[in-house]
């Protein structure tokens, strides 16, 4: 398989979803500043090619286990923008009935699990075990940040997935920065895909700013897992435009470096490619932009008009066996 197998309609779909993630994020950044959204909001801008490229490679029934900045991954997994936005507003109509906000969205119907930090890797491994045990066709994509590599859970999960040959793909978004620490303070090995070798699984490094490259790598790993060939590790080298979260903007990050990366903006790059190589009309892309904007405006309106969860339900749904 190579990138030429993506036809124009598929590329337009990748463009549409990346645009959705970007615009959605820009919208909530504004809402956060205006105090409409509280709590911890992680941003994803700049990394859309990874989430979208990987998740678009999946069928709907496949699973995504994501970490922090997961509403991006959640949208990429085809969650309704209304449900995601309402959750960020903490409303009853939200994807988790407003219980969660955006920290660890879990939606069994969507086959999506958000989990915090490296804690998601073991859970994803267990989900893959459930698939294998039930002889299902599904594959689990587990997406996490580079700092997970300095947590033991990463290693334990890769080891377990390898021993049991589980249908799982580990996808590391290597964005070179934690909250403020450069990776060389965090992992002694900056070529993160090299950790695949001792665990006896294929490991590749891809340009995480190129959605097509991510998509192809994801499809290849998916095929292996689907065929019972076990786990893989993909390292996607990328860059996040803002700091790790709205409350920690990385003001002092080198402006020059950021400009270079911005020139590699995955959405602008795909746009140029669609207009150039593929001869797509500018109006087509503009129409997608407008449709996306309209869906986000609709989601905000929906969220604003939705009811709060009744306060007396707060202590409820702690135990499944209670209802």
């Amino acid at each position, binding site marked *: 398989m190579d990138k030429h197998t993506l036809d124009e309609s598929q590329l337009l779909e990748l463009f549409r979803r990346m645009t959705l993630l970007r615009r959605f994020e820009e919208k909530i950044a504004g809402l956060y500043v205006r105090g409409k959204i509280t709590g911890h909001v992680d941003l994803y801008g700049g990394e859309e090619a990874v989430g979208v490229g990987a998740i678009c490679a999946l069928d709907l029934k496949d699973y995504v286990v994501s970490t922090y900045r997961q509403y991006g991954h959640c949208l990429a997994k085809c969650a309704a923008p209304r449900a995601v936005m309402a959750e960020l507003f903490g409303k009853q109509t939200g994807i*988790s009935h407003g219980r*969660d906000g955006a920290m660890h969205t*879990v939606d*069994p119907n969507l086959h999506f699990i958000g989990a915090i930090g490296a804690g998601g890797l073991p*859970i994803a491994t267990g989900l893959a075990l*459930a698939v294998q045990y039930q002889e299902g066709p599904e594959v689990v994509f587990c997406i996490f940040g580079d700092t997970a590599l300095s947590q033991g859970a990463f290693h334990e999960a890769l080891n*377990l997935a390898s021993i049991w040959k589980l249908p799982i793909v580990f996808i590391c978004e290597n964005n070179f920065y934690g909250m403020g620490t450069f990776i060389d303070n965090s992992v002694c090995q900056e070529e993160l895909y090299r950790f695949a070798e001792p665990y006896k699984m294929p490991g590749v490094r891809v340009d995480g700013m190129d959605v097509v490259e991510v998509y192809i790598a994801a499809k290849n790993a998916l095929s292996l897992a689907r065929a019972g060939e076990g786990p893989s590790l993909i390292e996607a080298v990328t860059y996040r435009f803002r700091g790790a979260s709205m409350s920690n903007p990385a003001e002092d990050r080198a402006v020059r470096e950021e400009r270079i990366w911005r020139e590699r903006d995955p959405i602008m790059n795909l746009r140029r490619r669609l207009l150039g190589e593929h001869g797509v009309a500018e109006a087509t892309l503009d129409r997608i932009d407008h449709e996306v904007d309209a869906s986000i405006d609709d989601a905000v309106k929906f969220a604003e008009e939705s009811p709060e969860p009744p306060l007396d339900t707060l202590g409820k749904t702690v135990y*499944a066996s209670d209802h």
Partner: protein
Amino acid sequence: MAQITYREALNQALREELDRDERVFIMGKEVGYFGGAFKVTEGLLAIYGEKRVRDTPNSDLTIVGAGIGAAMGGLKPIVELTTIDSDLLAMDQIVNAAAKIHYVSGGKANVPLVIRAPQSQSLEAYFLHAPGLRVFVPAMPADAKGLLKTAIRLADPVIFFEHESLYGVKGEVSDDPDFAIPMGKAKVVREGKDVTIVAYSKSVYDAVSAAEMLAHSAIDAEVIDLRTLNPLDMTTVVESVKKTGRAIVAYQGWRTGGAGAEIAAQIHEAAFDSLDAPVARVASLDTPMPYGQHREIMALPSVAAIVKVAQRLI
């Protein structure tokens, strides 16, 4: 009904639930070939095969996390943790994931996971302080079987404590495959009118022995076995304390911040006017467990300590 050990009762429960539900499986360090660090899973690998009785690496955090994921993927995992270190190494997954997922998903996702935790050191207090997690602490072989079956069938995550010193204890246990013990029902194991001794796990035996000794000095003690700490059946406890007017909580954990503190606080809250004396606690010394048999006896709560405290209360 047959006289079997606590260990055999657990093994029976596992077999019956493995037979009953294809989704049930066991995983943990040494649970297969070796039959479990304490031989609870002995013989299961031969019957159910490697798919359903899975030896795992020595990766406690990740095995519990994998149990959570497997539970969310439609299975009913039973994870055996081998040591007290294991419980603590896996704490983040237990408290921050297993216990919370149902709630943060708005009730959409369930985590029907059972964590079997053999314990030499009693750490149940940590898990009592984790909303979303059920905590089972059976003392008797019958309860071990009946509650393990309930745990396996439950939609919630359960941590199931097995005190190592109880594995060899024998008792009457039903062999009806439909036998199960409901959670959240304490059991009055001895009736009495002078003082209520609330206990669980190994301390139930100490409490019963103490009650027998107290009978010689004409003190009639009621002994309650809580059986589960979450749910906690305070109705039975409070009813007893209203009758006796005095209560002792006996537990194996460290005194300070142990489960006994919570139970005592709740007794005071609910039965203050019936109490003739403050609720007393008989628990372990607040020290790391020293080495050697006689020192274990010294540092742990004992029959003699319960007797002494009961005599002081009356």
